[in-house]
């Protein structure tokens, strides 16, 4: 994901984009209302003007005696060279008496209404009906093409300006979102490095003092403090392990020399041997503890190269096959495709060895252990599966803690540090470690893919009665 290019969806989800869109919408709405208002007021004014002209005309014609009215209408029509005015005189029974239009239905008297183009000629008209003294109906119309034109133009302006506004809002939203999105990507990248355990890493600051800088600064302060506390705790642990190791090693050497010197009684020799063995256990634990610290401290990947996982799994199986045979455990290497990853071969060998050693140790006599290397869509997987007692789901996180030993396996030899070493190696590679129920037994998977979103250790929660 780190190397992925910016996707449209990423931009779409940014708050800058959404804000720009919201502002754009409000702006477009304002423009629409404004244009609508202008249109409405202009149209109303033009209509009112037409109505006033029609009514003036109506008053003038109403004053003409009924007998002269048809002639007067004809005169008006002949004077109407522009062809914009329309007249019709209808008898009481609705019959056409005179005029240049023939309306089948008259509007209500004293009311003006719009007649669409095509009804009377090919132009829209505003038509006023008045009842004159002789109870005849006089229809006076006026061409309102300019008003209709105006309406169409305003509508077109509304549509085009709406489209242009929408487009400019989208483009500016996209452009405005890019810079913050890139910054967020940088912050996200830095946070992943920190989440992967590098407490020396910091969030990048642009020095603008904007909200992202403020946020990054706060996180940096937090990481610095966490790093200081972790280093303090780790330093104390390591110092204890290191400082005790030196005198204990000297004690061991002295015991060894005493044991080698002539004249040591058999009973004393046995006691010295027992003390040496106990010291070896303590020294092994210190060594393992320091090894974990050493692995955790290794940030760089200088020793990384291409590893053939199938070969690695085969070598581990070859190494542990005699141990499995001695415990009457069948150790199986499942046929695996040629799978290659980048990593430290010796460290991965150590991690897989630890898992196989554990599996052989914990399965009952006659049990099965299988090592498999498989390919997945996200990268190769190394899997160690056994049919032993497994690890109870609520204990799967605890087994990664240093010195953790389940109460029900106190009789099985071990330091309680093996899985911590595995976790440290997996962490160093940026791979994922997964514990699952093998029904019955345990399956541990090392997912050889770059850990994403800080995910690294995954525990599949399934009911399991027994625990390791």
């Amino acid at each position, binding site marked *: 994901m780190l190397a992925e290019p910016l996707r449209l969806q990423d931009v779409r989800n940014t708050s800058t984009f959404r804000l720009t869109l919201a502002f754009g919408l409000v702006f477009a709405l304002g423009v629409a209302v404004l244009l609508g208002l202008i249109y409405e007021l202009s149209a109303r004014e033009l209509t009112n003007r037409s109505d006033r002209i029609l009514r003036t005309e109506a008053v003038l014609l109403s004053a003409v005696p009924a007998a002269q009215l048809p002639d007067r209408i004809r005169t008006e029509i002949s004077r109407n060279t522009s062809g914009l005015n329309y007249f019709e005189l209808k008898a009481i029974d609705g019959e056409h008496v005179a005029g240049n239009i023939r309306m089948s239905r008259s509007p209500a008297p004293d009311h003006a209404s719009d007649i669409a183009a095509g009804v009377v000629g090919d132009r829209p008209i505003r038509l006023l009906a008045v009842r004159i003294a002789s109870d005849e109906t006089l229809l006076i119309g006026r061409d309102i093409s300019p008003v209709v034109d105006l309406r169409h133009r305003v509508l077109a302006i509304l549509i085009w300006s709406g489209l242009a506004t929408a487009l400019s809002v989208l483009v500016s939203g996209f452009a405005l979102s890019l810079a913050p999105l890139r910054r967020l990507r940088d912050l996200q990248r830095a946070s992943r490095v920190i989440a992967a355990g590098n407490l020396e890493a910091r969030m990048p600051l642009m020095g603008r003092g904007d909200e992202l800088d403020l946020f990054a600064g706060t996180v940096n302060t937090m990481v610095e403090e966490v790093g200081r506390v972790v280093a303090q705790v780790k330093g104390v642990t390591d110092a204890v392990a290191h400082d005790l*190791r*030196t005198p*204990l*090693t*000297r004690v*061991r*050497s002295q015991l*060894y*020399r005493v044991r*080698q010197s002539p004249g040591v009684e058999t009973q004393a020799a046995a006691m010295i*041997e027992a003390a*040496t*063995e106990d010291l*070896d256990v303590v020294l*092994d634990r210190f*060594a*393992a503890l*320091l*090894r974990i610290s*050493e692995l955790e401290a*290794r940030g760089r990947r*200088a*020793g990384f190269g291409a590893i053939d996982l199938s070969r690695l799994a085969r070598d581990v199986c*070859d*190494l*542990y096959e*005699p*141990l499995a*045979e*001695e415990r009457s455990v069948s150790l199986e290497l499942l046929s695996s495709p040629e799978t290659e990853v980048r990593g*430290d071969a*010796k*460290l991965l*060998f*150590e991690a897989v*060895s630890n898992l196989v*050693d554990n599996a052989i140790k914990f399965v009952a006599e006659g049990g099965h252990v299988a090592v498999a290397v498989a390919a997945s869509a996200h990268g190769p997987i190394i899997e160690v599966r056994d049919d032993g007692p497994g690890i109870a789901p609520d204990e799967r996180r605890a087994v990664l803690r240093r010195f953790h030993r389940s109460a029900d396996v106190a009789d099985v*030899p071990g330091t309680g540090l093996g899985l911590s*070493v595995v976790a440290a190696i997996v962490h160093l590679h940026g791979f994922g470690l997964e514990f699952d129920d093998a029904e019955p037994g345990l399956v541990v998977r090392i997912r050889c893919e770059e850990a994403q979103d800080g995910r690294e250790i995954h525990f599949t929660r399934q009911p399991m009665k027994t625990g390791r």
Partner: protein
Amino acid sequence: MARILVIEDDVTTAREIATELTAHGHEVAQVHDGQAALDMAMREPFDAITLDRMLPGMDGLVLVERLRERRVLLPVLMISALSDVDDRIAGLRAGGDDYLIKPFASNEMAMRVEVLLRRRQQSSESAILRVGGIELDLIRRKVRVEGEPVRLLHMEFRLLEFLARNAGDVVSRRIIFEQVWGYYFDPGANLINVHIGRLRKKLDRPDKPSAIVTVKGEGYRLDAV
């Protein structure tokens, strides 16, 4: 008896190394400074060197590089508190023959020195290794016990070869794991025990004691029986 140059600035550690090597019958010369050590190594004949990685005057890595440049090909056991795999690799690349991490058990240190001494002696020897009734043909990778061929797997052969090259001396499980398998982590005592046990089964003859002897708390030794 071999003559060994101990280069170590910490007087207590230098004394421990000298005491242990003397107890194993070697003659020891101590020097606490890098430049003085280089001069002494060039001037006097030695069979092996134990070299502290961090020295006043001259860094251990530089010292071993200078020695190799001047065609001093003595086996060098580098001793260092730097335990990281990268540090170990740097030490071996500079010209060290083995790498031991501080703090160390004195007998383990002595074992490593002796493994180096023997490796040096054997470098020009014949392709056949014989320890009592066991015969290893290093070229054909064949083994005979009392004249009878014994089939060994690849790693079993390497294990036996290592034990045979150090016949008569105790080698620890850790040294075995490092030298035979080439890994530097602790695989647990039991793993090496079972590999030794399997090898024993193939080598042992009913009328004779086992050629591979377990030395409690220390390791294993191949004896001529």
